[in-house]
């Protein structure tokens, strides 16, 4: 009965050699299954730890949430058996993705935040991370005023062992300024990131795409063009960044729509299968804006969608494709708004289409 371990380790080591991707996820899920079949909780936990990471950083938030729930359950049953530090650290990745799913009610999100707060307090750190994630989640839920309040609470407290890295914290604050429409302030705040003085595994990847349209609005066209190249080469290989591919498409729609077409062709199938509806919505809106722009200006263009896309049949009918993408994006927006109790995303989408389309 020991031979399951050989197979388990084999799968795990194959997985380790791969970048975060669907292939890696498939290997890890299989490894978790084998561990479960053998009733080996320790191995199951190890595989899920990797699933959580791959899911959080490779674009499978749902799989990450499911695996994490299981891990946390095992931990609660036997806290001595598992490493608390990394488990609690990963809580942040999980909670960050939850608001993307409109079917999770606001009360449940809040009780999750409270659960994290309680656990972190027991772990011995301050409320800083709680306020920080409350800030982030409020922002994602279109509650910008609440986000401001949380941000102020967060700033009162000192960094501790559960704090995100300085680059990530800065990135989220830049993101906030962009959402508030404070272009100039956002770019000023992002300066250490743009210059490479503050960086980490996901910064400046996450930051730069959000700054393209603001730079364009400020008339800083050359900076925007240079940043676009640099930024895209940083993120293009990771399907996690669907929303950011959308930002690139939206920006190029303003300055050079033809260059956005290959991006649409490449990333649309990824967007369709992306587990995170919020990411999908943003990508669809920007793609719809691009198609609208191309039609409005009457440019000749060819769209070559791969057969893997369920929209492949609409490649020759861009007007229908645009309408379909908009419709699906607004359906997600409506569901999110209903949960959030506002009309933030619906308005967001309208504004985006008007500006970039």
């Amino acid at each position, binding site marked *: 009965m020991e031979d399951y371990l050989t197979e388990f380790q084999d799968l795990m080591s194959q997985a380790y050699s791969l970048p975060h991707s669907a292939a*890696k996820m*498939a290997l890890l899920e299989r490894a978790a299954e084998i561990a479960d079949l053998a009733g080996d909780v320790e191995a199951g936990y190890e595989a899920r730890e990797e699933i959580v990471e791959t899911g959080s950083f490779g674009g499978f938030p*749902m799989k990450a949430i499911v695996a994490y*729930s299981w891990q946390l359950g095992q931990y609660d049953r036997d806290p001595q058996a598992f490493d608390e530090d990394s488990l609690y650290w990963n809580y942040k990745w999980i909670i960050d993705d939850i608001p993307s799913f409109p*079917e*999770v009610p606001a009360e449940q999100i809040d009780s*999750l935040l409270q*659960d994290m707060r309680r656990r972190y307090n027991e772990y011995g750190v301050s409320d800083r991370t709680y306020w920080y994630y409350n800030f982030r989640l409020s922002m994602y839920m279109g509650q910008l005023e609440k986000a401001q309040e949380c941000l102020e609470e967060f700033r009162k407290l000192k960094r501790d062992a559960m704090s995100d890295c300085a680059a990530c914290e800065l990135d989220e604050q830049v993101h906030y300024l962009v959402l508030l429409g404070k272009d100039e302030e956002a770019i000023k705040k992002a300066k250490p990131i743009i210059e490479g003085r503050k960086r980490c595994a996901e910064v400046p990847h996450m930051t730069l795409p959000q700054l393209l349209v603001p730079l364009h609005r400020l008339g800083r066209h050359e900076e925007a063009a240079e940043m676009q190249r640099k930024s895209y080469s940083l993120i293009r290989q990771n399907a996690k960044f669907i929303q950011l591919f959308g930002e690139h498409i939206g920006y190029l729609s303003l300055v050079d729509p033809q260059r956005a077409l290959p991006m649409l062709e490449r990333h649309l199938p990824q967007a369709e299968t992306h587990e995170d509806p919020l990411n999908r919505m943003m990508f669809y809106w920007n793609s719809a804006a691009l198609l609208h722009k191309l039609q409005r200006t009457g440019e000749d263009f060819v769209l070559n969608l791969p*057969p*893997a896309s369920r929209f492949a049949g609409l490649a020759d009918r861009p007007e229908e494709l645009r309408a379909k993408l908009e419709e699906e994006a607004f359906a997600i927006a409506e569901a999110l708004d209903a949960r959030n109790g506002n009309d933030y995303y619906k308005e967001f989408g309208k504004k985006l289409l008007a500006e970039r389309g």
Partner: protein
Amino acid sequence: MPDSQEYRFQVNLSGMIDILSNHLYSSPRVFLRELLQNATDAITARLDLDPSHRGEVTVELAGSGSGATLLMQDNGIGLTEEDVHEFLAMIGHSSKRNGTELLGETSFIGRFGIGLLSCFMVSDEIVMLTQSAKGGPSIEWRGKPDGTYSIRKLEASLTPGTKVYLRCKEETDFYFEPESVELDLLHYGALLPYPILLTENGRERRINPEPPDWIVYPELIRDRQDEVLRFGERMLGERFRDFIPLQTSTGRTGGIAYILPHAVNLNAKRSHKVYLKRMLISEQADNILPEWAFFVKCLIWTDELQPTASREHFYENEQLERVRGELGESIRAELIRMSETDENRLRRIIELHALSMKNLAAEDDEFYRMIHRWLPFESTYGHKTLGELLDEHRTLYYTATLDHYRQLRHVASAQSMLVVNGGYIYEAELLASLPRILPGADVHRLMPEDVSLAFADLNAEERSSTLEAARAADLVLQPFRCRVLLKRFKPEELPALFTLPEEAATLRSIERASEESPQAFASILGSLGGSIQNHASSYSILYLNLNNPVVERLFAGKPTRRLNTLVEMLYANALMMGHYPMSRQEMALLNRGILSLIDWSMDSEREE
């Protein structure tokens, strides 16, 4: 009395030095690179005046420990008095703006100044003697890190060129040791086209070998196979067996892409050695080749790219994008050439580096068209190349995930279906786009629910005779959201087959996790699962095989009292055969079932 003047930098020099050493350079050892760079620039400038000039750099070490000194001498263009004032002025000017302007400086004089300043990382005084090849007096400059310096015109006239003296400061004597100086000079200057001589204890030796002529005449590379491979081993520290020459259309960037002799981890950092104007810029340049080129390790020389301020990387700009594209094109063209002229060589490379080849093919149709026959795949017909699979002239089914492949493999094999595992990275993508590069290719994506395509439906008579039992069976598994369907399929030894559409698989995993989760998470999983549950495709399917004698008996005539338990057991059996982990509920069902079977078997014994 010779003409001597005391000056003071109008700058906070220690601030500049701090910027250089703490924020710009990765290590103090780069002072040697900076000095070598200055010497190289000066020799290049002199060659512009006099193409027949023969450049040379000499490094002299004296003393040891904390008394060590270093002299670097070049026979380049040298500096005039105005030049010296100019670089000092540039330092002064840019120091008022955090020094950042100076760091981006690309002119000879501007660069010269930064190069010199970097020596303060290892020396508390810099003495420079210089004589311009354009004439004028020889100049001596002495600078200190506190910002004071003096300039003196010398009476005697030196030969043209520049000498820089350094005296090691505390705790930097390591950088003045002969072994370390020799290594660094070779490290940075291995490709320089003129000799670098090192003198210590009165012994002089040449550090850098004569650079190979094929660096200048790339057309020679193909005829120097062995030499090029040996060169690669010396420069990159690995024994290679194959390489691809690189060249851009301008001819200003060239190199050798050595094929890595082992498979590579896709996560590994690419580390190519890149020389700018023959000076080493980086050993970790990862942005000079396209991402897919992870099966090669390169030596690259260029004079058309702009280095970053630290001179350790290149700016990501249009120029770099072009060079990257063209170097990639060199590799691509060579692979295509191999496919036409040297299949075995290509096959060897592909076997080692299938993943990156697939990545490249997925991004580039033309490349895919050329190479598709050699790409390896796993299939129900074994591990074969795509060419061999196509030669079967059958419909090529592929699965999008490893899981689907594992579920379908056995049924498909029994029915001689040709199913390719598309679950590995890039594979499904490649198979999906096969018809695009190979018109008429008969390729279909196979979903777990599609196995029913290959199943025979029951005829009308069979349907009506099994109808009642089939309905009853379907009801049994409702609580598990599993449908029961009766079919005929091969192999007949297989009584039941469980298939799980994607949504059902997600739901299944959510439910299993939910059983184990703390309250706050369980409710969230409930919400996530709830929205999926409403879809029809969230049902799994249990196919029962009427070709199997036991199943046939079970469904003949009226449903028996024991039907429920028996269907449940077939369900549990199919889960186990398909390697699906079971939920607690399902485990309980299995336990109950086994006990019932034991019970019944004892009953029947008693009856006998």
